[in-house]
């Protein structure tokens, strides 16, 4: 399986370079070449997912035993990249940045999702990208490489490297093939995301060096490691050991041991310092992911970038790159720093999620353009992911994961439709397009279906994720937030979502037919075979995930259980951490 995983990662890289180098072949060839590579990687990712099913039992047991992330052993590829200090005898992961990739439940479904959406992106660009198309498809494949790499990485610096690497293809894709204001949009997204990313890197560095320093706890071995599973274990162990020490010295003091007072003070200082450090690191770490997500108030790059980017790229941006932010929370922020996540993260980020959901929905309502509306709707829907995560219980986390996948599929499909309209009419403004249902019957039908998915009609996929996020928040155990109130307010987001989505459908597809003037030699037709071949399987997938999401929930359960368990274990100790006597 490790060869398959490596192949999955390297295939887009090779494809990207081949496509960049094969010049002067015309766009027909470049697009077929790119499609070939993407379909191949889609097949591999499906094969990997298929192979994962029988492994789940052992995998769950291994995670239960080690209380940290455990990539499936047969899927791991690992070797040193930057060796900073010699490895310790017991552990090979210390002292080096490693190329460490693997599969576990958390990234499993994101791989086929990535491949599906990149297929959609290439099919969506099928007729619209004709200039320098070999560059376009090459960069798109490189973007796929970086995204897959970020999902697969189990080394924190490797993750960061891939995370940041997505920026370069994006910069070129937006700035070279985007709308009229493309250069501004591309630079804005670049500087925004780079700034956020560097802040995250600072958090990562802070965490690695904090764990590296024995002075936090003399009894623990030094953890100079960049491996995410080891770091999760290390923060967890440190927290528990510190709490234990503090409890011991308190007990000593109760026994009226005179010398123990200074000991207690020292331990209190240590615990306090560690908790302050964790807080800072948590804040730093989250900023990059908040930018990527995006969440209020770091979202201002998003509408310009989504609108100016070529629609194929917007599809990827909304469908999969935004998920890197959610994934960052699930993989890094929450498991690595459960205490600040519980103490103030829940409070802060559920508020941000609430604002994002309502503000995004409100903005979406007043847009006069399909693509812009989708940008804001995506902003709003991803707020649910954030909300679910910071419920910090299994329901919420599962809901967040499902919402991540489902939103990817839905928004991917809707942006694909958006691209089809752009191709046919050159505009997606509501005032130009009206009553298309009478002309483009299949297109309208399938769009209505995806709108229903997105709105959260029970039985379709959008419903499951959003509702589980709300349920999770509704019965969160966190005393800092009143989950019931937040969940109730956020449920209005679903209502508003139905409002703007349905009114969009009303405006564009129903009513009296009114089309913009288009070139006579290019008559508007309904869905072609290629377009159908993307939209119909996607629709059936949405239906399947809506009706029967259980297999997916089962497969991600060990990781979700682990994350919430880490949280619970760390925060059962919280009363001791609070020093106010």
């Amino acid at each position: 399986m490790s060869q398959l995983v490596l192949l999955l990662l390297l295939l887009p890289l090779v494809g990207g370079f081949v496509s960049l180098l094969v010049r002067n072949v015309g766009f027909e060839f470049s697009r077929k070449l790119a499609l070939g590579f993407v379909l191949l990687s889609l097949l591999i990712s499906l094969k990997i997912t298929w192979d994962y099913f029988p492994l789940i039992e052992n995998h769950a047991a291994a995670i239960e035993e080690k209380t940290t992330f455990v990539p499936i052993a047969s899927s791991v590829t690992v070797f040193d990249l930057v060796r900073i200090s010699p490895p310790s005898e017991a552990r090979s992961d210390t002292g080096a940045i490693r190329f460490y990739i693997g599969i576990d439940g958390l990234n499993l479904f994101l791989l086929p999702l990535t491949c599906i959406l990149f297929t959609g992106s290439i099919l969506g660009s099928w007729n619209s990208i004709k200039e320098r198309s070999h560059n376009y498809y090459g960069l798109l494949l490189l973007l796929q490489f970086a995204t897959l790499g970020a999902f697969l990485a189990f080394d924190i610096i490797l993750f960061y490297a891939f995370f940041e690497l997505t920026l370069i293809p994006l910069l070129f894709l937006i700035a070279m093939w985007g709308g009229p204001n493309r250069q501004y949009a591309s630079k804005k997204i670049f500087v925004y995301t780079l700034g956020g990313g560097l802040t995250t890197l600072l958090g990562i560095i802070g965490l690695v060096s904090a764990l590296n320093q024995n002075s936090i706890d003399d009894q623990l071995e030094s953890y100079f490691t960049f491996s995410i599973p080891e770091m999760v274990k290390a923060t967890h162990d440190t927290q528990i050991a510190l709490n234990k020490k503090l409890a011991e010295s308190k007990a000593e003091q109760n026994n009226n041991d005179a010398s123990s007072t200074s000991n207690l003070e020292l331990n209190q200082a240590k615990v306090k310092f560690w908790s302050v450090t964790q807080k800072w690191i948590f804040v730093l770490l989250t900023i990059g992911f908040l930018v990527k997500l995006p969440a209020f108030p770091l979202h201002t790059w998003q509408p310009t970038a989504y609108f100016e980017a070529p629609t194929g790229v917007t599809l990827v941006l909304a469908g999969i790159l935004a998920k890197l932010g959610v994934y960052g929370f699930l993989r890094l922020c929450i498991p690595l720093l459960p205490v600040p996540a519980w103490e103030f993260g829940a409070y802060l980020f559920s508020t941000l999620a609430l604002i994002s959901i309502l503000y995004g929905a409100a903005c979406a309502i007043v847009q006069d353009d399909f693509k812009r509306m989708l940008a804001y709707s995506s902003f709003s829907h991803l707020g649910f992911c954030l909300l679910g995560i910071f419920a910090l219980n299994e329901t919420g986390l599962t809901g967040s994961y499902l919402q991540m996948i489902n939103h990817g599929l839905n928004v991917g499909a809707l942006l694909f439709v958006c691209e089809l309209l752009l191709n046919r009419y050159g505009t997606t403004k509501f005032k130009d397009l009206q009553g298309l249902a009478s002309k483009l019957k299949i297109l309208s039908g399938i769009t209505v279906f995806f709108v229903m998915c997105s709105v959260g009609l029970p039985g379709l996929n959008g419903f499951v994720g959003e509702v589980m996020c709300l349920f999770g928040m509704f019965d969160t155990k966190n005393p800092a937030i009143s989950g019931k109130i937040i969940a109730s307010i956020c449920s209005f987001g679903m209502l508003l979502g139905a409002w703007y989505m349905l009114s969009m459908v009303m405006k564009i597809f129903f009513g009296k037919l009114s089309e913009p003037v288009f070139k006579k030699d290019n008559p508007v037709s309904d869905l072609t075979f290629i377009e159908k071949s993307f939209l119909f399987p996607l629709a059936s997938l949405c239906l399947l995930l809506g009706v029967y999401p259980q297999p997916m929930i089962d497969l991600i359960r060990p990781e979700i259980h682990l994350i919430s368990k880490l949280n619970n274990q760390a925060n059962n100790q919280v009363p001791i951490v609070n020093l106010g006597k």
Partner: protein
Amino acid sequence: MTGQFLFIDYVQYLLPEIFLFSLASIMVFLGPFLKKNYPWSLITTVGFFLAYLLLILKKPDLLDHTQLFSINVLDDMYSNFVRHFALGMGIFFALLFWNNSNSDNQNNHETFAFLIFLVAGCSIVGLANDLVILFLGLELISIPSYVLLYLYGNKKLAAESALKYFFLSIFSSGLLLFGFSYLYGISGTTNISAISDALINGFRFKSASESDNQSALLFLIPMLAILGGLGFKISMVPFHFYAPDVYQGTSYRMCALLATVSKVAGFASIIRIFGFALAQGSFSGSSKTLDNIYVLFWILAAVTMTIGTILGLLQRNLRRILAYSSIAHSGYILAGIAVAPKLGISTGIDGIGASFFYLFAYFFGTFGVFAVLDVLETKDRPVEDWDDLAGVASHNPILAACLAVFLFSLIGIPLTGGFLGKFFIVFGCASVPYAWDDALSKDSHNLFLILGIIAFLNAAVGSWLYLRILSGIYFKPAMWPDAGKSSFQPSFIPIFGCVIVTVILGVKPNLVINLDLLKGLGNPVIKASKLKIEDSQPSDVLVWKK
């Protein structure tokens, strides 16, 4: 036979430099008698290769390091690293200077002879263990620079630029010499190891009543003067004013020379002279005198990187942008030096190692940018503004891609050397150890954490600066039909070399640079201080404390 060195040992040790000097001298003398198109470039390149070969084939341990206080040159890891670096740079520059068709300058022999002098000077700076030798090396860099600046300028601005550089350089040399003589006056020796040892272990004058504090104050004056003099070389704020003007008046290849060779020499000498303060971890505390010099470096680093970045954003001229960029990068390197005294070498990366890694990555990025621009600039089509780069991507995609890689490295995007450089520097800043019962150590921990934050803020803001160049290449429609077209020329070899090294440095740096060896770089002086002091002959003026 202690204390006696065979002349032949020195000659053997210095063979690469001696060879280069002889070659350059011969070139200067013979040049006027030979025809104009004599293949000086080929001779220079071969000369550098031979010198490099001599360096590699040199016998190890030629010098007796137990006699540290009486030898003038050192044969340690640090000097080896700088020598390899310098001669490697020499090869790159010889190839860059090869094609001379754009310049009015017909004095090819002088160009190449001075280039050789310059590189040999940089190499000498690396191995100097004596203030006088160090000064010799630094002047060997400065004086050829004056000539080359004028030879390679565009004539209108070249005179101004060369003159400005000349006067300020003379000023900085004066400052440096003042510091050196003051240092000699205090310590009675010009041997750097001896001075460092005095500073590390503490010393007193013949009257035992004087405390270390007073001597620290005494040492502060020469050290500040020296830092000022060397700060000019590395274009450190507030000695950076010359950089934009001088860069603007000269050609890209000369900019490359100023931005790399001068800088390497400057940093090499700063680390050598301040080694006492930066020596890490192996003795308790840092030096007794000048204990808090890291604060000065902290301020200089923060100010230099911030001013370089902010002022760079205001520029339109490419040379000026890159000048400010080189100022900003000096700031990052200084941050590594600042944090060095506070870092133990046992954990992770150390400050000096990080600085040198950054310098190494910076060289390939900066050299690459300047080399590409040098290729793109022709007589009829100057490249001044980033608009002048429009269309390069469509006519010369390979060169444009190379430039993009270099710019990404300077921004600090992963998979390039620049990223790991910044990573190491900030990692160093973030991992200053602290003790629980020591408020001072916690303060310094937080202080350097702030420096790390400043560095990353600057990196994020500074990315805009390089993005504009990038958008000039890629996102603007071509203004000239033949923009950026160029046939193959020798300077393509170092450009491709730079691309390869930049990427390798970002992915698996151990292939080109041994990170473990880098770690030892900060400690040449410690080696000295560990030796038994009785074995050597201290100068008469000093009375050594045990």
